[in-house]
């Protein structure tokens, strides 16, 4: 995500050379993910939460639910809001302040995956059509940046949503009355993102920080549980050929199945 031109030329060359012979600096194959660790329900105050560790990359996602107004064009549906914070403690390149374009892009890629796959049954979150609906806040909190924040955030967001509990309620004269007990947030789809880096005209899956710093371009594809494409984003200063895009799509198909199993069973 963060573009830093300050990687030693020697290292740049070494990374590119290794990749052209099918190897990587950290010992992985070109289409291997780093080890994924996932914990859910770690923040009691949040309605749902999860932490994903992807190698040394660490992302936490918390969800909160509030009552708010629906969008006028969909008066019968709840509202989904995704926000990402590149917290300064996560990397020397992150600065405090309002969200920059990197954090906005990250949030919007995660948002598109969840929204376009219709992962949350938003139509079940309407309290009073046109007036009151539930607003689901998904807050992505990056705790340690070692590359591929997109996939880690997408996984953590899905895990947090699957872990989200809503309080039971009934509506009495337009007022919401909280009843005892909780029900899980209705989730019908499981979008998972796979990110590629193009280095020296070769594709690698799950780039770590040093690979991101030397990559020409980045490509993310999000697939839902039926293997349908629901979001795509190209990033970085380079380009892709159509053959590379199609190759990436094929690899992503296999990768998302493994990742999805990991997230959904947690």
């Amino acid at each position, binding site marked *: 995500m963060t573009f830093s031109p300050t990687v030693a030329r020697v290292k740049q060359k070494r990374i590119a050379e290794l990749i052209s012979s099918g190897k990587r600096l950290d010992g992985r194959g070109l289409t291997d993910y780093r080890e994924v660790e996932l914990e859910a329900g770690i923040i009691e105050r949040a309605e749902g939460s999860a932490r994903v560790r992807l190698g040394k990359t660490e992302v936490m996602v918390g969800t909160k639910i509030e009552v708010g107004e629906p969008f006028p064009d969909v008066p019968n549906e709840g509202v989904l809001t995704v926000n990402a914070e590149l917290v300064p403690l996560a990397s020397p390149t992150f600065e405090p302040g309002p969200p920059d374009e990197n954090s906005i892009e990250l949030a*919007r890629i995660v948002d598109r995956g969840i*929204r376009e796959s219709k992962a949350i049954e938003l139509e079940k979150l309407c309290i009073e059509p046109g007036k009151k609906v539930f607003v689901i806040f998904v807050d992505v909190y990056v705790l340690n940046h070692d590359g591929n924040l997109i996939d880690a955030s997408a996984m953590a967001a899905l895990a947090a949503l699957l872990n989200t509990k809503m309080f039971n309620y009934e509506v009495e004269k337009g007022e919401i009355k909280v009843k005892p007990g909780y029900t899980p947030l209705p989730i019908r789809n499981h979008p998972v993102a796979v990110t590629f880096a193009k280095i020296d005209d070769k594709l690698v899956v799950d780039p770590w920080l040093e690979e991101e710093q030397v990559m020409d371009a980045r490509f993310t594809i999000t697939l839902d549980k039926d293997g349908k*494409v629901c979001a795509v*984003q190209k*990033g970085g200063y380079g*380009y892709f050929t159509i053959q590379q895009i199609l190759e990436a799509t094929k690899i992503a198909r296999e990768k998302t199945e493994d990742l999805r199993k990991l997230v959904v069973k947690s």
Partner: protein
Amino acid sequence: MAQRKLEKLIDKNDVRIDGRKLNELRPVKIEVGILGNADGSAYIEQGKNKILAAVYGPKEVHPRHLALPDRAVLRCRYHMAPFSVEERKSPAPSRREMELSKVIREALEPSVFVEYYPRTSVDIFIEVLQADGGTRCAGITAASLALADAGIPMRDLVVACAAGKVEGRLVLDLTDLEDKGGEADVPLAFMPNLNAITLLQMDGSLAIDEFEKLINLALDGCRHLYTLQKETLKSKYVAVKEAVEE
């Protein structure tokens, strides 16, 4: 909105709501060199879209610490005028505009020889005066011409076009109505001479083979727009040549 949903966007003869065929672009009008102060500028009308692009640079970078020792920094601002859409849009940059500014910059950068102008900046401004779907693509097509008009050395022109899925059918160059009522949208930017895709986004729901078909459809649209883009650029110099000869 509810009434709109009842309208069919494509009839049974595969004619779209604005009378186009499935693989037909909207009427396009492009002009270059239309702003007095900018080093390069272009204006594009694609259907109801009306978009201005201007380029300033290479010039000294402000603030200075952003300058890079080995290349120019390319900066881009995509912005929509408050009156460009149905309901007034606040002029403050939205999250969408921030994201688009980033992806447009990354779509144009592969075409520019940034290493020729170290410690400088090239600033690109895209103002959407009227929007009707596909503004990021039309903006890229215009901005690339503005860069060429500014005389900045480039590997190729960047041309952009979207394809999408509407009512189960794959269509080229979606209007706002088709985008909102459709199932998926795939904006794409392309450098035809280098066979390089420099922007690719997608939202919606598509089978993998549909995704592939839409990329190819958008590429066809790009190739068509590319000839228009080149003609526009040439015609400016033809006009100058004629004026000199008179």
